[in-house]
């Protein structure tokens, strides 16, 4: 993630994240670890609170769509142009 492009906002305005029942599943543990690390950050980052609460709703059956959403959040923290 060190060499990713940076983003200003992690989600397109007005877009919704759904359960994505037919999506390609990804490892639960990996996803949960990512969400966990972001939750830790949320204690000093109220601006990320909504996105973190959103991605944590899909911890039961995470798919590639959800992973992309998490990646965007990481991109907001890190990354350069």
């Amino acid at each position, binding site marked *: 993630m060190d060499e990713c492009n940076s983003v*200003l906002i992690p989600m397109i*305005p*007005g877009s*919704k994240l759904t359960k994505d029942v037919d999506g390609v599943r990804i490892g639960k543990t990996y996803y949960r670890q990512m969400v966990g690390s972001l939750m830790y950050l949320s204690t000093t980052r109220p601006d990320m609170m*909504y996105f973190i609460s959103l991605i944590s709703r899909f911890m039961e059956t995470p798919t590639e769509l959800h992973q992309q959403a998490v990646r965007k959040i990481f*991109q907001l923290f890190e990354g350069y142009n």
Partner: protein
Amino acid sequence: MKGTIDYGLFYKKGKSQELVDFCGSDYTGDLNDRRSTSGYVFFLSGVAISWSSRKQHVVTLSATKAEFIAAASCACQGIWLRRVLEEVKYSQQGPIMLFCDNSSAIKLSKNPVLHGRSKHIDTRFHFLPDLTKDGTVKLVYCKSEEQIADILTKPLKVETFLKLRALLGMRSSVN
């Protein structure tokens, strides 16, 4: 442009200010079960000290009701925060100012009339009109553009997001 890993809340020493509160909701934010998201944020001296963003546990039938529930949960937190502040000798005067961008939710809190659109609202949420009546909480209207709690309830446009982030009291620790 770089990432924002160095951003954080910056608490400044200065004149004491009142506890201010913004609460908001996003009606039917979740496409799977149509529940709304409610969010609130408390400010002390212009910097966020307490915030929450969570999906509501009931399905609401109108944006007013979603907002009403958000305001009720936020009032609970406000009362608790006041007691904590009192404990540390920082007691607040007057009612808790609760900024809300839905005027019909404000009206409903002042005058809980039961008509077709609101008669199903559970008693538990009528906690709020009670508090408004005895002057503990005061709901004040604020424009949607100035509603800081929006950042906790929906994905926003870049400009709005950056503006509200600054209003939360967040800044880079580097410069």
